[in-house]
């Protein structure tokens, strides 16, 4: 008895209040999204708002259950939980029910379960468990590789479903790796790759390649301040390119201009390598690698995008980048969604007054597009309030994570922050056209038992760990 009273006192009330506010607000918005004049009882269990009520009651019980369990359970069983959720991800590929071309759901009778929602906290636990043993080791490759493997395994399994949304969420755990000491250069390179990726889709390959070479030469000049070196380097590259081009033009006839430039880069690399070796010029090597890497990347992306990426995903990215506009095909959802939210204005149309919402212009409005209801009926004020709640929760969780004595709890805490953040940002971002349409739910808001339970467990494990932060775990 004494223990449970202590436990209640040590649980973070701010987080719990925000959690309760969110599930309540979510429920009301699901009601609005499904609402029609004919059926008005909010407890109609044939309707989604009725069902969501059941999921909410269940999730509260789950939360209590998660909190009652001893905090050490999560530490000691983290690998077991991870293993179990991975197993579910494998099983769903075999026994799952195919819905819209994806095997993401188990179905038992009238009840369905999405294992990827549970794999999220499973992975966060495993990552926390692994990294808590390897303090400050994330600069070493033998530590990084297993850490990456922990999050890449579920990502790969969800890729096979295929469920791009969940897959991306596992990558959110890179935030945890960053916090735990992974080199920022990896993130900068990643960021550069992402930028290059979008540039590749937007612009002609050849111009991009030439721009990259120009940037490399300018970088070289600013770092070495030796213009002779820059001119010689450029000269060598141009001469090599000319030779390869002429050879290709008169003899091989199959390379194509991109390959010509790339092979010239490699060939001239022999000269550069000699220079780098004799002068021990590390900077030149870095710039050369950056140059070659970027050019290779650009051409790979272009090839991948045009030949490997699935057409509907390609379209989504193209629409987001403004390369194509299609208000009635793939872009329809986003367009209608932006119209819904935009038409809400400053103060919104009022609860249950959203015409876009009421007349079902936005598909999947109670699940992935629940934010449309918020935007349309509650306007800018309501939207900012919801974003504010998330911001508050995320910052609160960072605060909680940072006060942990156990690194396991802290790392897990960051796992919770990462997953919730990515969900929140991508979900809201896609409804307002800031992010491509990636079907992931808005935590605690969207309709659905699996996601609600998954997020509840994710959050409450951390709150449970936080409640016992004064006890040493390891």
């Amino acid at each position, binding site marked *: 008895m004494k223990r449970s009273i202590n436990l209640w006192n040590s649980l973070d009330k701010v987080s719990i209040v925000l959690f309760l506010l969110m599930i309540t607000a979510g429920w009301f918005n699901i009601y609005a999204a499904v609402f029609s004049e004919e059926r008005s009882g909010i407890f109609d269990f044939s309707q989604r708002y009725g069902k969501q009520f059941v999921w909410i009651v269940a999730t509260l019980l789950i939360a209590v259950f998660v909190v009652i369990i001893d905090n050490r359970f999560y530490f000691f069983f983290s690998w077991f939980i991870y293993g179990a959720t991975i197993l579910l991800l494998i099983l769903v590929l075999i026994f799952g029910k195919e819905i819209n071309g994806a095997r993401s759901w188990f179905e038992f009778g009238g009840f369905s379960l999405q294992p990827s929602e549970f794999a999220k906290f499973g992975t966060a636990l495993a990552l926390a468990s692994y990294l808590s043993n390897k303090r400050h080791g994330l600069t070493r490759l033998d530590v990084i590789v297993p850490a990456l493997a922990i999050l890449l395994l579920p990502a790969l399994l969800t890729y096979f479903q295929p469920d791009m949304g969940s897959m991306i969420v596992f990558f959110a755990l890179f935030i945890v790796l960053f*916090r735990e000491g992974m080199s920022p250069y990896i993130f900068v390179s990643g960021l550069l790759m992402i930028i290059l990726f979008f540039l590749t889709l937007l612009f002609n390959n050849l111009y991009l390649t030439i721009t990259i070479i120009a940037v490399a030469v300018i970088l070289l000049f600013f770092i070495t301040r030796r213009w002779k070196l820059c001119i010689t380097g450029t000269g060598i590259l141009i001469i090599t390119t000319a030779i390869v081009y002429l050879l290709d033009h008169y003899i091989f006839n199959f390379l194509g201009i991109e390959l010509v430039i790339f092979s010239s880069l490699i060939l001239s690399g022999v000269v550069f390598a000699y220079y780098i070796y004799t002068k021990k010029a590390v900077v030149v090597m870095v710039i050369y690698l950056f140059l070659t890497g970027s050019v290779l990347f650009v051409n790979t992306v272009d090839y991948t995008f045009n030949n490997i990426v699935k057409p509907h995903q390609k379209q989504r990215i193209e629409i987001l980048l403004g390369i194509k506009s299609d208000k009635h095909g793939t872009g329809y959802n986003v367009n209608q969604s932006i119209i819904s939210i*935009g*038409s809400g204005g400053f103060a919104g149309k009022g609860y249950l007054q959203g*015409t876009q919402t*009421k007349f079902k212009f936005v598909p999947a409005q109670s699940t992935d597009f629940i934010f449309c209801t918020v935007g349309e009926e509650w306007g800018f004020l309501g939207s900012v309030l919801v974003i504010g709640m998330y911001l508050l929760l995320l910052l609160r969780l960072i605060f909680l994570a*940072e006060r942990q004595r156990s690194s396991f709890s802290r790392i897990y805490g960051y796992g919770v*922050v990462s997953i919730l953040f990515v969900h929140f940002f991508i979900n809201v971002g896609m409804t307002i056209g800031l992010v491509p349409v990636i079907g992931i739910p808005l935590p605690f808001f969207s309709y659905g038992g699996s996601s609600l339970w998954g997020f509840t467990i994710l959050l409450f494990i951390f709150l449970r760990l936080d409640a016992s932060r004064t006890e040493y775990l390891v």
Partner: protein
Amino acid sequence: MKDPFINRKYVIMALIVMAAAGLIIRLFIIQVVKDSYRLSADNNVLRYVTQYPARGLIYDRKGELIVKNQAAYDIMVVPAQTAKSLDTTGFCDLLGISREHFRKQMKAAVNYSRRAPSVFLKQISDQTYARFQEKMFLFPGFYVQPRTLRKYSKSVGAHVLGYVSEVDDNAIRKDPYYKPGDYIGKSGIEESYEKVLRGRRGVKIFLVDVYSRIKGSYADGKMDTVAIQGADLTSSLDIRLQEYGELLMHNKRGSIVAIEPQTGEVLALVSAPTYDPGLLVGRIRSENFSRLQGDTLAIPLFNRALMAAYPPGSTFKPINGLIALQEGVINDETRFSCNKGYMFVGCHVHSSPLSLEGAIMNSCNSYFCQAFRRVLENPKYKSVPEAYAQWKTYLNQFGFGSKLGTDFVNELAGFIPSASYYDRYHGKNGWRALSVISLAIGQGEILITPLQMANMTAAIANRGYFYTPHIIKAIGKDNAISKRFTDRHSSSIDPANFDRIIEGMEGAVNGAAGTARAVAIKDIIVCGKTGTAQNPHGDAHSVFVAFAPKDNPRIAIAVYVENAGAGAAYAAPVASLMIEKYLRDSIGNKALEQKILDLNLEDKIIRREEEH
């Protein structure tokens, strides 16, 4: 143990705050700054269903309904609301259209607007409508728009009634009231009374969901506007007389205009060849219209009664007689001799010399040439042109040389040359009375329409005044018609001067030597004047003007039968039959009627035209 990466929490916090700020900025832009989304949302869910008012009905002077409405159904489409998985085959089968047609219509609709409704299929039949209504829910984005089309109780009066067609871009530009797909009156009464007949379009605003199912009325109907039905018109037309006139003119070319002299109301207005007004209604309209328009020989769409201007020939003599009397250059006692003509103007054999009355009765060219010469050489005036100008003033008082200002849209002004016209032609002071002597007998440069001729006859019947001819005698419930139709136009000719002329016209029909004695009607005194309008392209046109009865005239009429020769031959019988029909509603001289009905000038004309 100090955590070397503790400061990275700030990076992560900054990332989260920036992301939230990004979302808020974007939301601010789309929710607060731009208002285009609000409009998009409104258009998404509101369907504006036009409420087309029924067009006003048209009754004839006796209260018989001659133009009414019939229901028609247009299938409308809102391209943005159609399902991507539309069962095109099922849809086409249901409506009985080809897939090719479907694609064409769909493309046109998309080109017009994705969000606004446009007509997909016009005027489907009742049966198709019933079938489609049942299955409509299968085809979101499509709905039925009820329309009304014209229906005629008798297949006559096409030129008078006009027709209704869809508005063209030109009309839309001129009058912002019109929207594509609206109907507009294109000629006749339909055009001139368009604003009265069309009523006022209304709109009902419905809320629709993404499947374009109607979910109720928007704002409880507060924003709806009610369609106001067009006003009904009462025409002055006697539809039975009109029908009879068209029957008489069958297989002939020409026109009949009959006017009630006391009011200026048009009783019948026939232009032959004509067409069944029902041909220009509904889906058959465009095909028939181009066929009628393509008939360049008979030109059935051409309203000769208003738009064909001819030299009036001898029917012009009463006017010249009146002017001569008024100018005092002749009187009741004046007699002119005639030896088969005067100068170079020939005449036929008749007793001589003749008084004015006899000259009208016998249509003596010689008399009117001499009288006209006196008019122009009147010492009262300094010169011939000055006298001529006075002569022209009289003509203008009778409505010649300018548009009468009727409620027909395509009225022609005709032509009465001014003195300066002859100055230009002959040189100033270079012309004498003899230079224009053919005007004395209605030949030469003057051009007069059958409507103007009928109006002149009405003015003679009234002994000096007329009311502007009009075809509508009452509008809507308050019956008000334009004041210009109730203003009396009086000529400056003394009413007493009309007696001789009218007696001459009486004699022309009823006298033993009258030019039109063959068409006299028992117990009805018809006053008439024959005429022959020169036709440089072939046989002369037969013309006859008349009014009856002599006292308190009830009908004034002008009849033109093209290529039929002298006036007495065909125009006079047609006029006589029309008068009898109107005044008695039965025909005594069945033989005459049969002769006219059997007369087929059309074959003759076509044969001649083929020879050329």
